[in-house]
């Protein structure tokens, strides 16, 4: 039981970071029908951005703020205008292929242009350890979990409680109706891409201290986040959180009680089980298709 608790804490922390990346998946899908298979690399790139800025002597939070601004410009506006907008006119498949290619290009660009070696990354939180009963929890874990949950809940609140957020949701639900209502649809779609870029920066800030900064760090993260998004429901932002936690906890439990060799496979197994039994995800809703 104690082991399960310890695994649960670790799994929750990891899962909450998966949830941040998964939330990006669901937001982009809902707002523009974009499936971004470079989502993991969208986390990796800001990691190295922050490292580069920190090496210039900037404090971590200042580096994070500048990276967020750059990410909104490059991973938000640039990605939308350069890849999503032109290719979505043809269909979803070209976007999927283009983002797969983009992921490879970004990985190799960082490998060749920065470094192929893993780099240590400073943590926002100290590494003090405290005990809850017999369960050891570090400040890093607790802080990461709290920050990730706050971000997911904050994003949800922004989407549901603010005028801009509701307008973004309206665009996601029905673009034509939103246009008729006078909502600036292109602007709302850009906001979604911008939110995705900022979430990616936040995920980078939280995950890199534990996983280390490396050019291929996004590969596994992107896959797990995609599984999490589908498990939770691709058209439901709350589903991303649920999916992330399920993937994070289940892979930890499998690694401890079965074998570490099956750690990655368990996320895939849950993913397959969910799409077989509940194709729209645990919290997703069926969407009618026009014929």
């Amino acid at each position: 039981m104690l082991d399960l608790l310890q695994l649960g804490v670790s799994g929750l922390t990891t899962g909450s970071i998966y949830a941040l990346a998964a939330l990006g998946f669901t937001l982009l899908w809902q707002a523009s029908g974009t499936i971004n298979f470079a989502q993991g690399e969208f986390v990796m790139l800001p990691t190295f951005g922050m490292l580069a800025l920190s090496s210039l002597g900037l404090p971590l939070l200042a580096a994070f703020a500048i990276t967020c601004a750059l990410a909104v410009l490059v991973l938000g506006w640039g990605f939308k205008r350069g890849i999503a907008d032109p290719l979505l006119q043809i269909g979803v498949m070209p976007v999927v292929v283009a983002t797969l290619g983009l992921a490879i290009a970004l990985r190799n660009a960082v490998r060749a242009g920065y470094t192929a070696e893993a780099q240590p990354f400073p943590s926002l939180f100290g590494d003090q350890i405290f005990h809850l009963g017999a369960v050891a929890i570090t400040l890093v874990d607790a802080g990461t979990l709290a920050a990730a949950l706050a971000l997911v809940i904050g994003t949800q609140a922004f989407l549901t409680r603010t005028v801009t957020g509701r307008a973004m949701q309206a665009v996601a639900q029905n673009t034509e109706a939103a246009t008729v209502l006078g909502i600036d649809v292109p602007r709302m779609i850009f906001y979604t891409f911008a939110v995705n870029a900022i979430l990616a920066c936040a995920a980078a800030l939280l995950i890199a201290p534990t996983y280390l900064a490396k050019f291929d760090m996004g590969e596994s993260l992107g896959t797990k986040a995609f599984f999490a998004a589908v498990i939770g429901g691709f058209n439901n932002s709350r589903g991303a959180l649920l999916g992330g936690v399920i993937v994070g906890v289940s892979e930890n439990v499998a690694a401890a009680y079965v074998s570490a060799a099956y750690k990655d496979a368990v996320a895939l197994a849950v993913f397959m089980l969910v799409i077989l039994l509940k194709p729209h995800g645990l919290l997703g809703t069926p969407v009618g298709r026009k014929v």
Partner: protein
Amino acid sequence: MTPQRPIVTALACLLAISSAHAEIKVAVIQELSGTGATAGTNFKNGVRLAIDEINASGGILGQNIAATIEDTQSTPGVAKGLVLKAVDDGAFAVFGPTFSGSMIVSMAQTRKAMVPNFTGADAAIITQQGNRYVFRTSFTQAISMPKLARYIATSLKAKTVAILFVNNDFGKGGRDAFVKAAASNGLTVAADISTEAGLLDFSAPVLRAKRSNADVLFVYTNEEESARCLRELRKQAYDRPIVGETTLTGQRVIDLAGAAANGVLAHVGLTADAPIPAVQAFREKFEKAYKYTPDHNGLKGYTSVYLLKAGIAAAGKLDRVAVARALHGLKIRAANEPGVLMNVAIDDNGDLDRESFIVEVKDGKQHVKEVLPPLTRF
């Protein structure tokens, strides 16, 4: 002047020019990206430093060394192809790969072409196949694990040990050698935990290690995984001694693991912190050239070029077969060939013997606790 005279003169000139430009071509085939990037980059930089020094001092038998550097991407298939290419290009010697899996699949190429092949790979099987052209730059697991197991049993007075290893050729070879050595030193294996290469989250394996309640935890994984494992051990407040082999206390692992590396013990064949003047001088040169502290792979790369130099000197000619033959059974004294840094003996399998060290990480640095003498008498 007879009509033949100008032709002879021209030929002599050509010969002189070609001899002036003759070079000893070597191939440095290392893990410069992927999971082995830390090890491969250190090895490659060590080789480059040694080559620059040797060339600056007149080369070997009057010829400079020319190196081609290739990246295996930490993938055995790529490594095999690159070694084949190096052999086809006429390399006099091959340095690498460092990953045991890559070495195992590629060394048949150098063996077939009779090209001396120096490797930092640890897997015991590499030198157990009768390959006369493979030479280690560090201890085999069959030599280092018994030394480590004896230290755990006698100095740490442990009765049980948990093993956490990476499930690749390097890890499995080390695990097998350690289990054997543990048994012969009266140690009981309380947990045998396999992990995958590239594993990011070590919470489950570390929990299994804690659950085993073993007196000591032996960690045998690659660089990045070692760092992640040490971080997770600290996160879960693991309070028993953590011991490992060379990799666990490499400077790169220490840098990546941060405070989590403090207190970790390891048996290392080579360390830049060794209290030996020649090693300290090497460290200084390396840091000046590359702006970071070398790990054991940097030392392996550096000394491997000097092993080749000593082999050529012993053979007396630039002949691959003669050099390989001369290297077997060769004892190289650091007084005669300072580049080898410590007295070193190469046995008939291509394995080597020299002093080794037990180190402890304190305040982010390795500190040598004990110097273990070589088994060979010089």
